[in-house]
């Protein structure tokens, strides 16, 4: 790929505007406790329909990384992490704020987040292309095993509700079977509704499950406004001090590597990475007692790791079509909407788009740092948006967004129904993310299985496992399940330790 072509493509007006808009919106979303990166990406997905693929993806990945970083602001300022990935940041960050060192904490958090994000961007740049070569060797059996491997993410996306996660994932798989059968054309589970013949549209389902349901959650306490105490802060300084940078740079590097590795594992997200990194930073620190008392290394470890996850979770998505996180699952929808199929083609035929997005992701992380430090001064005002205003704003954006998919009112009804479904799932402790994964992976699994049935001569299972890639995927499935359990346990233990 011609690097000049990539640069020209990256710095086109549309792409730069997409990064600026994405970073700004992402920061805003991350800063508001209760609003998540998933919600941001789901809500902005319909806005990208009219965009060029590169600009659309740049907007969404910018929202993703900036929302994760934005979550550190309320964690540091009011001890209320904007996203679950910033929970470990709150431990030391809030203590610094109480000591009047809010500015120092934000500077460190910004430096670490940008560092982690850039490391993960380079990991994406160097690991993804060679890994995508494997996808060329995929046939029906491998695709079926890949879908099964993808479904093991369900366990890790279920945060302690393994069986409920599996049920939600199975419901997603079932919903993917609604509509015309691809082989026979027979309308399955349509019950006379012509609107269901073409199946359930993925995008309105995502908007309903993540955005509308969140609006319903926020409406439980409509008058809630984050009240900020007036914070005494040290003299405002835009750039990090050299002494601070020297203190945290090694922690940032190690935590970024941990974040990248955790991010590649399907389902293991920023929250796990930040707790694991926090624990490792403490374990290898010469001054362990400073952790929990306003340690700069504590903030750096958590923030570098959670932002390092953002890029690396895209590696299994872009190479094999397996989303490494809930946000990556929504991004998979974005790829498909823009006619981009994960795999080798993304790095060859569509390389000009993919490499522009990866370089743009690195640029977005740099830009995020500048914007973050600038808006930190004014953060108090931004965080005062009350729920009674957020609720109608999210509802209206969800309605308009789902209508924009195809100027079709049917999509709005799909979104509304999934919104209620998502809300009830949350109330009943059924995680909504596995349902989306089931909806995405269902057709891949079914097509792979049925084609394998046709090709198999000595039994379908034997056919599926009778090749190296399927066997490796089978082993990865087993490892994925056990590593998820291990990481979840580590997170819990570290969390309990930090509380005590």
């Amino acid at each position, binding site marked *: 790929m011609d690097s000049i072509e990539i640069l020209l493509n990256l710095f086109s007006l549309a792409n730069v505007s997409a990064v600026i808009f994405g970073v700004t919106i992402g920061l805003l979303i991350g800063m508001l406790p209760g609003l998540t990166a998933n919600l941001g990406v789901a809500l902005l997905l319909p*806005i990208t*329909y*009219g965009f060029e693929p590169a600009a659309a993806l740049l907007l969404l990945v910018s929202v993703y990384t900036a929302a994760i970083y934005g979550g550190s602001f309320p964690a540091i300022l009011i001890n209320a992490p904007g996203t679950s990935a910033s929970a470990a940041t709150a431990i030391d960050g809030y203590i610094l704020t109480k000591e009047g060192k809010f500015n120092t904490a934000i500077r460190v958090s910004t430096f670490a987040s940008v560092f982690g994000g850039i490391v993960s961007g380079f990991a994406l740049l160097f690991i993804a292309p060679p890994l995508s070569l494997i996808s060329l060797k995929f046939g029906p059996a491998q695709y079926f095993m890949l879908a099964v491997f993808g479904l093991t993410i369900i366990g890790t996306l279920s945060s302690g509700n393994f*069986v*409920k996660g*599996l*049920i939600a994932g*199975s*419901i997603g*798989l*079932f919903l993917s*079977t609604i509509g015309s*059968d691809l*082989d*026979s054309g*027979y309308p*399955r*589970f349509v019950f006379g509704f012509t609107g269901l013949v073409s199946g359930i549209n993925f995008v309105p389902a995502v908007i309903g499950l993540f955005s*509308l349901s969140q*609006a*319903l*959650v926020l*409406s*439980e306490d*409509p*008058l809630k406004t984050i009240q900020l105490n007036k914070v005494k802060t040290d003299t405002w300084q835009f750039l990090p001090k050299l002494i601070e940078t020297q203190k945290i740079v090694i922690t940032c590097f190690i935590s970024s590597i941990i974040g990248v590795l955790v991010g590649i594992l399907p389902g293991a997200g920023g929250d796990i990475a930040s707790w694991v990194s926090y624990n490792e930073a403490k374990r290898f620190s010469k001054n362990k007692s400073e952790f929990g008392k306003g340690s700069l290394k504590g903030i750096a470890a958590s923030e570098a790791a959670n932002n390092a996850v953002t890029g690396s979770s895209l590696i299994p998505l872009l190479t094999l079509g397996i989303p490494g996180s809930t946000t990556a699952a929504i991004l998979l929808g974005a790829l498909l909407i823009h006619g981009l199929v994960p795999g080798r083609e993304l790095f060859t035929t569509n390389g000009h788009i993919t490499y522009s997005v990866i370089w743009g992701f690195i640029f977005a992380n740099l830009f995020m740092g500048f914007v973050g430090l600038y808006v930190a001064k004014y953060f108090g005002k931004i965080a005062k948006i009350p729920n*009674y*205003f957020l*609720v*109608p*704003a999210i*509802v*209206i*954006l969800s*309605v*308009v967004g789902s*209508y*924009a998919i195809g*100027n079709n*009112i049917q999509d*709005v*009804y799909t979104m*509304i129904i999934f*919104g*209620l479904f998502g*809300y*009830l799932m949350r*109330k*009943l*402790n059924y995680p909504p993310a596995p349902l989306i994964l089931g909806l995405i992976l*269902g057709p891949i*699994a*079914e097509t792979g*299985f*049925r084609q394998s*049935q046709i090709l198999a001569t000595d039994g379908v299972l034997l056919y599926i496992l009778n090749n190296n890639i399927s066997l490796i995927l089978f082993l990865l499935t087993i490892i994925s399940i056990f590593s998820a359990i291990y990481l979840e346990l580590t997170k819990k233990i570290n969390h309990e330790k930090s509380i005590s």
Partner: protein
Amino acid sequence: MSRIKSNIAISLLLVSISLALYFFAKDFPGSSKNFPIVILLIIFVLSLGQIIVSIYRFKNLNQKNFNIPTTPLIVFGLSFLSVILMEYIGFLGAFAIFFISLLYLFRVENKKSYIFGAIILFLFIFIVFEFGLKVSLLKMGF
């Protein structure tokens, strides 16, 4: 209702639905029935497992109260009604009513800033979708 009771109720509902859909799917022609049948059986088994786990916990755990607050359900109802209304009076009219309804439902005291915010939001959405994305909001729903 306690959370455990609600778990049992939901699982029973899932067991019944998966069973009913299983018998429905059995009549699908050829191989089109295989995958849905396998998935429905998985849902059936998992829900049954959930019932057993819940009954076991019912005996051993303190039960937390579980209830779904009414406000989110009213907000959902209003959203649904607004979408229906949209087909008759258009997007702007339907969601103006939606905003005003929420103003009273949430008992917002600072009405001026609420209305000002609503106008700004409408303008933002209108500009982005109408001019940026060529989605005609004025014709939306008709």
